[in-house]
């Protein structure tokens, strides 16, 4: 019996030794940001920023840099990242990557598909990091700008994007799989967020910059990068980005609308509405041989500020303001779509996919050259804003002011 038990234990020790792939916690370095620049001698220059764990100790946090970076050149991402240990002591773990910065030069000249494939194929990368195109500065600068609140730069960018989506909406909400899907799709072209550095990147790298109230450098979101297949072809501004989001899925936004269409040019008056619930529906169809892009938007909103001389306790005023907002938003969105049609000629909105869903037989014929069809299509945007309430006041105190004072 004892012999048997001994044998069983020996056998178990062979089978249950654990896995080959175990790595101890103190042997890994968690990568939070990756930056891709064009290489000088080789194809790419990759910079990884990984967390310095001593900084996060609750009892006695070290006073060092929150992240450390390492840069190497090479021809492909997996090779460079495997080679990083020439300078990094620990094994790099990429599953918690928060941001991927791509230098605009790389995106413009080589296209992004070469390294996106390795990211998609690798089991380490999750589908939850942001793809960001960096303007002006080199991408590696972005991986090392400190932030006093979040400390880790890439975490800061991701959080900032998340908060922006909730408050104003300025990020296309594109993840790796969406981006790749848009590259290969016939009826949609990819977009990505762009970032810029506001300030002096040299100073921002210093951990001591976290001591300052006014950060010497700050990473800022700057709108959209428009791609044709996998190559960058141009940029859209932040305002256009929000208009782009209206066509997709807008969580909420705040928008100021002039009271009168042709009011006082020098001192225009505005009222603000906050969009709380938004629904947009895309319809693409052909009228004869002319493609028609139809966008129907229905939003619920409430009034947040009122500079106009209007009495918000009357129903008619609500209707009037609704009509003003409808028109304003309609113009904004139409303008953005027209701009994309004329300047870039690629369908970043996904009207082609809508056609594929709605009129499959027609789509089969035209999707092959959809971008040309998209550029010559008629745009028809219908916006319906439903103003529901106006905060904790109905009439604005401004309307109570003696008229004369305002006019003076």
């Amino acid at each position, binding site marked *: 019996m004892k012999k048997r038990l001994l044998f069983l234990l020996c056998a178990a020790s062979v089978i249950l030794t654990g896995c080959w*792939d175990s790595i101890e916690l103190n042997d890994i370095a968690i990568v939070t940001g990756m930056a891709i620049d064009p290489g000088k001698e080789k194809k790419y220059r990759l910079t990884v920023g990984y967390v310095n764990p001593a900084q996060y100790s609750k009892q006695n946090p070290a006073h060092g840099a929150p992240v450390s970076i390492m840069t190497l050149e090479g021809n492909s991402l997996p090779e460079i990242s495997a080679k990083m240990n020439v300078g990094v002591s620990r094994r790099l773990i990429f599953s918690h990557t928060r941001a991927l910065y791509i230098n605009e030069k790389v995106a413009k000249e080589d296209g992004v598909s070469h390294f996106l494939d390795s990211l998609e194929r690798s089991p380490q990368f999750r589908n939850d990091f942001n793809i960001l195109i960096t303007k002006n500065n080199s991408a590696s600068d972005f991986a090392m700008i400190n932030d006093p609140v979040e400390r880790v730069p890439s975490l800061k960018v991701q959080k900032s994007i998340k908060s922006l989506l909730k408050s104003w909406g300025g990020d296309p909400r594109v993840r790796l799989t969406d981006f790749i899907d848009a590259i290969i799709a016939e009826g949609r072209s990819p977009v990505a967020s762009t970032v810029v550095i506001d300030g002096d990147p040299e100073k921002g790298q210093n951990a001591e910059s976290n001591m300052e109230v006014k950060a010497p450098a700050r990473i800022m979101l700057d709108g959209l990068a428009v791609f044709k297949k996998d190559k960058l072809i141009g940029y859209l501004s932040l305002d256009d980005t929000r208009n782009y989001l209206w066509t997709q899925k807008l969580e909420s936004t705040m928008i100021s609308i002039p009271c009168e269409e042709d009011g006082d040019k020098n001192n225009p008056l505005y009222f603000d509405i906050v969009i709380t619930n938004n629904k947009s529906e895309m319809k693409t169809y052909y009228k004869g041989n002319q493609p028609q892009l139809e966008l129907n938007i229905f939003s619920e909103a409430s009034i947040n500020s009122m500079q106009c001389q209007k009495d918000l306790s009357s129903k008619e005023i609500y209707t009037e303001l609704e009509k003003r907002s409808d028109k304003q938003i309609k113009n904004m969105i139409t303008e953005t779509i027209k701009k994309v049609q004329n300047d870039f000629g690629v369908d970043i909105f996904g009207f082609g996919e809508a056609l594929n869903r709605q009129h499959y037989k027609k789509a089969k014929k035209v999707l092959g050259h959809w971008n040309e069809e998209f550029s010559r299509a008629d745009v028809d945007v219908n916006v319906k804003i439903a103003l529901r309430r106006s905060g904790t006041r109905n009439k604005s105190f401004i309307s109570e002011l003696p008229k004369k004072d305002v006019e003076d």
Partner: protein
Amino acid sequence: MSKKLVENISLWQLAVLMFTFEIGSVAVVGVGTDTKQDAWIAVGVATVLGAGLVWFYVYLLKQLPGRNLFEMITFCFGKWLGKIIGLLYVYYFLYISARVLRDFCELITSVIFENTPIEVISITMVGICAYMLYLGLEVFGRTGEVFIPYVFTFIILIGLAILFSGEFQMKNLLPILGDGLGPILKHVFPRLLTFPFGELVTFMVIIPYVSHFAKAAKVSVFTVLISGFIIIYGTVIEIASLGARQMERTVFPLLSAAREISLLEFIERVDLVIVFVVMFGIITKVSVFLFGGLKGLEHIMNIPYRYLVFPVSMIIGYIAIQISANNAEHIEEGIRFIPLYMHIPFQIIIPILMAPLLIWKVKKQKRRSDANGSR
């Protein structure tokens, strides 16, 4: 013949085994990806046909109550021809069991244990199956019973979690039937009908040991419909969360879909739950095929199958690795050769050929025994 150990499993255990058998491989490799966003329709059509096929299998078994597939083959084709056909079935069952095992090994080595040698995974997995079968069919049935609640709830929860993560986009399912029914039917026959539904032919070895044999037909058909429903559910999840284009490119769709889950930034990275479901499904599937092959060997060689469990299972662990040099070869074999040269003959042609012979022989036997009785 030596006296057989009589083992029985209950109807509920049969249903459990069939259910996990069905969803096991499907959870690994996904089905119907060629039909793009209409994959779920294809699965639906295949489910109905599959239920018919299973009904047919049980109908054959009913003609000779208490005898399994191999005994039935000998009864129909005589001793020698019966043994040859039986041996072919043994090869078929063991080969498919090795293939299923390889599916799982591929998943583990490419997603979780990248550096672990594939041999280790294959041997440990087949070791579990061998041990379970060595303890007998009853233990196998009870194991299924123990794990089924987890498997079932996990699959349902994964779907709900994807739904609440906001990754679930119904518009990915459009256009419905864009190219008409043609491509779907082409895909259903032979591929979807044979995998996963036609593979239930293995249960012709297990169903005779069910304690309430009379109700077996009803239970089997019902189970196939339920599991078909769950497969449709899984496929809809895959399409809606990944989109048809991406689903075509992923090697393991359900796992990729589970990776999209992020509930309240708190429940994240739950893909290991899928690996659990897959692991249990694979253990069941490998064991069922292995059991089929072993029972066949028992019938042909006239020795209790328990003597054969360990040697044969180790061979399977080895074949699973040797079967193909790389993943692409493995998948291509599965798509191009297996359905045509293995699934269709063994799942459909031989049983259909056997049916009239069986009915005729049973009638003849009955007449003879009636004549004997009246004499």
